[in-house]
């Protein structure tokens, strides 16, 4: 019987290696799997690359991870200069790669979909394209972008069943489905547990085939 539920946070985090690239779902305060990040802090993996929409606000789980010196590199669409990430970067203690938000989402989708590279006009005419490969397609300057896969994705879901099928609540969907398909090991915290078959097949957003482990973390 397929059963992707794990019983403890320690089980959820087993095997996350030093040096891993962690895809971290969420946007604003919504859909961020903060309990899983706390679990990752407890688990102890170091030298991490974090992929997230932003560099984390004061008091956020990303900031706690940064403050513990566990993050080597941050890939995100913006960092507030006054944030801890901004200060660490300016002190040379953190690598930061700034990626346009749509390109970031698309690079993760590419990783999940077996697309080995793609062209986009986004950013092609900007500083972000300096020294990188561009070509004109259909009269538009386009930038070549490569997939952004993760070793681990940390995902927040609203409902999950034992196959790992997921739904999301409202705008908590955001990066979570894309990251779930882009990582080798997708670890989900779900707010609710559904029996197999309880989620209508047409309404499942992330099929369980993209999910490795599910931990029930009630609201």
């Amino acid at each position, binding site marked *: 019987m397929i059963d992707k539920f794990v019983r403890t946070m320690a089980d959820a985090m087993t095997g996350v290696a030093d040096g891993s690239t962690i895809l971290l779902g969420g946007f604003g305060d919504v859909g961020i799997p903060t309990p899983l990040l706390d679990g990752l802090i407890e688990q102890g993996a170091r030298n991490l690359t974090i992929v997230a929409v932003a560099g984390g606000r004061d008091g956020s789980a990303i900031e706690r991870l940064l403050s513990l010196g566990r993050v080597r590199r941050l890939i995100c669409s913006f960092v507030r200069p006054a944030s801890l990430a901004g200060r660490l970067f300016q002190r040379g203690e953190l690598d930061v790669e700034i990626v*346009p938000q*749509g390109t970031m989402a698309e690079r993760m989708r590419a990783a999940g979909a077996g697309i080995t590279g793609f062209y986009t*006009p986004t950013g092609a005419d900007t*500083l*972000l394209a300096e020294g990188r490969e561009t070509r004109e397609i259909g009269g538009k300057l386009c930038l070549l972008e490569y997939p952004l896969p993760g070793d681990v994705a940390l995902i927040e879901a609203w409902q999950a069943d034992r196959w790992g099928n997921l739904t999301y609540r409202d*705008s908590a*969907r*955001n990066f979570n489905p*894309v990251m779930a398909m882009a990582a080798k090991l997708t670890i989900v915290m779900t707010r609710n547990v559904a029996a197999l078959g309880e989620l209508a097949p047409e309404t499942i957003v992330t099929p369980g085939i993209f999910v490795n482990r599910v931990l029930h973390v009630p609201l």
Partner: protein
Amino acid sequence: MAFTPLDRNGIAARCAQDIPEGWLVNLGIGIPTLVADFVPPDREVIFHAENGVIGVGPAPATDAVNPFLINASTTHVTLRTGGSYVHHADSFAIARGGHLDLCVLGAFEVAENGDIANWARSADEPVKQVGGAMDLAIGAQRLWVVMEHTTKDSEPRLRRRCTYPLTAKGVVKRVYTNLAVLDVTPDGFVVRDMIPGMTLEALQARTEAKLA
């Protein structure tokens, strides 16, 4: 003749006038977000937010906040009847794939060739705040900018060429400022509308680019 520049709400309201029913519209953070407040609820304009919300509605009553529903400015919103959700890659597919009828962004500078600069004040700025602006700027059918006509130090923001790092080239179609509405045309900025009391001469004095 005396004139009173529009305040932030005034700029947003002026922009909102020009958005017809049925358009799909993305509003950037800052003044652009205010635009939605000035579209009458019975005019069905569909607001898109980068975090996957299609059909963003007004702010909720304080006792009816849905903690799972925010817009791209991360403030709590409602979902309009008929709205739906997509994930982030699909949301930017909407933006980059040409499905937005309109995107309204703030900017530091706009140039007469339609270039926009809104993400960094210098190439040397250590930490850049790109967000989704580059994706939105290249993808929308129309990009309108709402901003103050000049900086706090009275430096012009409507430029012959942008002095700040670009967000995208040649994409701005119209600019709404606290003083005027200007179209970006092959011949540069064309004034469409000015606030009461404003003259073309006075506007030109506050603008680096040549106005027509």
